């Protein structure tokens, strides 16, 4: 079951495509931390990736860190292996950390079900928004920018107007 609003971010220490391990403490200076359950193979993830890059570019200087986490079983979906993650991050020019949750611990702790699925944690690392990035896979059809609005609220120290939406995407591929 997905974690409830107000829940603390899970502790983690996972390898990233940059060749380093990244833990929750590494982001201690950030005013907002966005964990996105993600992967390589899913067309929904691919459709939203550009917006993830854009958000990190626009809000990075204001203390926002986006961290994508791939927990998918690479045996059933070889496109989601760590090697393929590194290749995709380089090819697509990811400006956010992309971590490999091979034991699927973070996905289970978050209660994630879909890719992409967003979890926004505030300065105290409490969950303030959970769900979709926005309301349309097609960028031209977006009318509600849930993640951006939630981040603006968190950075301003207030509650987001919308705190939960339904993430639309592929299922997490459990072992």
């Amino acid at each position, binding site marked *: 079951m997905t974690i409830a609003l107000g829940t603390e971010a899970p502790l983690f220490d996972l390898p990233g495509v940059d060749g380093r391990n990244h833990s929750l403490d590494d982001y201690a200076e950030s005013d907002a931390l966005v964990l996105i359950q993600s992967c390589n193979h899913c067309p*929904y993830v*691919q459709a939203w990736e550009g917006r993830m890059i854009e958000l990190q570019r626009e809000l990075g200087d204001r203390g926002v860190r986006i961290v994508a986490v791939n927990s998918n079983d690479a045996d059933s979906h*070889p496109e989601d292996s760590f090697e393929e993650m590194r290749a995709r991050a380089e090819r697509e020019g990811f400006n956010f950390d992309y971590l490999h949750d091979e034991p699927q611990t973070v996905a289970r702790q978050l209660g994630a079900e879909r890719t992409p699925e967003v979890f926004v944690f505030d300065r105290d690392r409490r969950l303030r928004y959970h769900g979709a990035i926005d309301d349309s*896979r097609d960028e031209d059809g977006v009318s509600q920018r849930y993640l951006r609005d939630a981040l603006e609220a968190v950075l301003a120290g207030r509650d987001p107007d919308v705190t939960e939406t339904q993430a639309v995407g*592929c*299922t997490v591929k459990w072992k």
Partner: protein
Amino acid sequence: MRIEILHWEGCPSTPEAVELLETVLAERGLLEPIELHEVTTQEEAERLRFPGSPTIRIEGRDVDPTGAQGRPSLTCRIYNLPDGRVSPVPSRQQLEEALR
């Protein structure tokens, strides 16, 4: 004309694919029924050469012959659109070409 949609419940794009296909069929005056077949196991995916959900076949021919060559798997299928974007459903253009 036999029109099939092979789908897997783990991918949410089936209703959108059905709606798009129904629209394209109606515009062409085609009243053919759409056969929906749910793929539930990896073994079935391999037997049916199912590269992901949804897979649409017109008279047995995939509407995206290139993507049809993908590894059989219970997964969401990726369609490459003419404008370079990717989509979990085929483009209207792909469906129209497949129906010609």
